[in-house]
């Protein structure tokens, strides 16, 4: 048997889809109505944001499509002047609130995803370096992380936002607002990724499969990217999902405070800021519906993140 040289062809692997449908994750998903609901809400809001130009009755960014005469139309009303139907009412510019929410959640999601990606890549890279190389790099990175953790992250984002804007000419502010926002939120949020990755890297680095790779002389770069990185990604993805909800809220907070997206490209936070001016004058819909949209989005993404954390945590199985 031992010296045989007959070619052995392994049988084909079971179908990817089949094994996915049989997995623990799908099983756990099917058993939790709240998670199913959160998935549906998230999906609807993602799709609405993605296909906003085709779904929305008007483009709220295009002043030519707005009719001032339709300003403050209540929800579920057809305008007597233009004949436009306003599902969720209109604001002081005659802007359709439903369309503004679709376009606004687009910006909120874009900023959220991009900021999480920025924080995730930065935090993972620094965490890997700190955990794998150790020494002064580890000490330096983790002390910076400790210091940053002592500030509330929204304060950090405000600070970073202000500093970056200070370096840019005023004329560019509106154009690059979205990028500045992404960098500010991303920079304020890398610490938790770095900490999780560093801890996981320290654990994986000591395991014998890494030593086995070192015994055959695999270069450190390959050990890091082929062995350690894939094995530390699981906690990172969980933090990322929960982080998405936090990033969306952070963006809304900054925009609400007036330092985020300008009123010409409103995100959900901007819409809420604009809407609060009319809260006591009877036009409640301008505030309420963007607020509800933000609540539903953040809540359902957060519920999904919590569920994912539980289902991927081997200790809770």
């Amino acid at each position, binding site marked *: *048997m031992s010296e*045989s040289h007959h070619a*052995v062809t*392994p049988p084909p692997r079971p179908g990817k889809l089949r094994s996915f449908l049989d997995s623990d994750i799908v099983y756990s998903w099917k058993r939790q109505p709240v998670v199913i609901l959160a998935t549906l809400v998230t999906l609807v809001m993602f799709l609405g944001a993605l296909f906003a130009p085709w779904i929305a009755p008007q483009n709220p960014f295009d002043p030519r499509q707005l009719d001032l005469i339709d300003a403050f139309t209540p929800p579920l009303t057809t305008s007597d002047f233009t004949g436009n139907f306003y599902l969720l009412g209109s604001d002081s510019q005659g802007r359709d609130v439903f369309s503004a929410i679709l376009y606004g959640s687009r910006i909120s999601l874009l900023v959220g995803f991009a900021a999480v990606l920025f924080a995730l890549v930065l935090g993972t890279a620094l965490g890997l370096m700190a955990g794998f190389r150790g020494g002064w790099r580890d000490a330096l990175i983790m002390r910076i992380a400790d210091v940053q953790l002592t500030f509330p992250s929204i304060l950090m984002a405000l600070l970073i936002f202000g500093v970056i804007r200070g370096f840019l000419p005023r004329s560019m502010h509106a154009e690059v607002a979205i990028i500045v926002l992404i960098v500010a939120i991303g920079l304020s949020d890398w610490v938790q990724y770095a900490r999780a990755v560093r801890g996981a890297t320290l654990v994986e680095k000591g395991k*014998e499969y890494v030593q086995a790779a070192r015994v*055959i002389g695999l270069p450190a770069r390959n050990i890091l990217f082929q062995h350690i990185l894939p094995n530390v990604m699981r906690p990172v993805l969980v933090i990322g999902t929960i982080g998405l909800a936090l990033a969306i809220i952070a963006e809304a907070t900054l925009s609400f405070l007036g330092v985020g997206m300008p009123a010409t490209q409103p995100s959900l936070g901007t819409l809420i800021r604009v809407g609060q001016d009319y809260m006591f004058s009877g036009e409640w819909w301008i505030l309420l519906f963007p607020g509800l949209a933000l609540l539903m989005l953040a809540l359902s993404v957060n519920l999904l993140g919590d569920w994912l954390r539980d289902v991927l945590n081997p200790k809770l199985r």
Partner: protein
Amino acid sequence: MATDPLTTAERGEVLLEAHDLARHFDVSKPWLNRVLERSDKLTLKAVDGVSFAIRRGETLALVGESGCGKSTVARLIVGLYGLTRGRLLFDGEDISDLVNRSGKQAAAVRKRFQMIFQDPYASLNPLWRVGTIIGEPLRVFRPDMSASQRRTRVGELLEQVGLSAPDANRYPHEFSGGQRQRISIARALANEPEFMICDEPTSALDVSVQAQILNLMRDLQQQYGLTYLFISHDMAVVKHMADRIAVMYLGHIAEIAPAEQLFATPRHPYSQMLLAAVPTLTGTGKRRGVIEGEVPNPVHPPSGCAFHPRCPHADARCARETPTLIAHSDSSEVACHAVEEGRI
């Protein structure tokens, strides 16, 4: 032994020679704590002056209680740790600087040995398929091999260790501890090494599975003429595997002797103590000895002979002078003043 007792004729047979190996670890507190608490730097001498030689095709077992430095010796040999002191010769070539080598220089040496680890649950990357795991040494050392050649070779290796070729498509978590250790062995065999360092390869397994793995390792040794450095704390396992045995205590070698001789007439008091503690199925009629005392903290080892606080034969010289390995006429080497003076 400590210097160079091998004649040229003997050296032809020797595969690995270790001269005065030492590895010290810095276990001090961080700088700030040291300054504030006015404590000194602390050094752990995990291995301190270990010398031995392994002949081609034999199994040298390294035994001792946990914490005595066995595993550190293994990791020094395969270049996972750098040497603090000493010299390593592999087939005549000085490989003391292996840990710092890279590229072709490292590969030329590294492809000639392999290591099998203790924990079958940590020694395989959980995200890789078994075929990828076993093929890893091939990808490193045989870049000329095509993917299909490699698949065929992995299938052969799997059958050689008693698994089947289709297992290459499965993940490590689908296997039991014993099967995982077979996968580890298949990976270790992939680059056709001459020398295998086995760091307690069976201590995490059930007794019934242990025997299967040990027999597999012996069969492979005969088939390929492998040389083993076999590390264990289990005397029964060692008896089954070893040609010669080196007994380690607190970073030093206490005694090296042929296996049968060591089991029949252990000379060092520590070897005697270790063997007296081994339970036998039939019973020898004697009361089983109990190992007295505990291994001292290696950060603050005892003066002189490290074993003297636990040794029934210790005298003033033992507390003062560190004994060196001395070869005796019965082909054993013992580091003990009492044996040297003929007191035991």
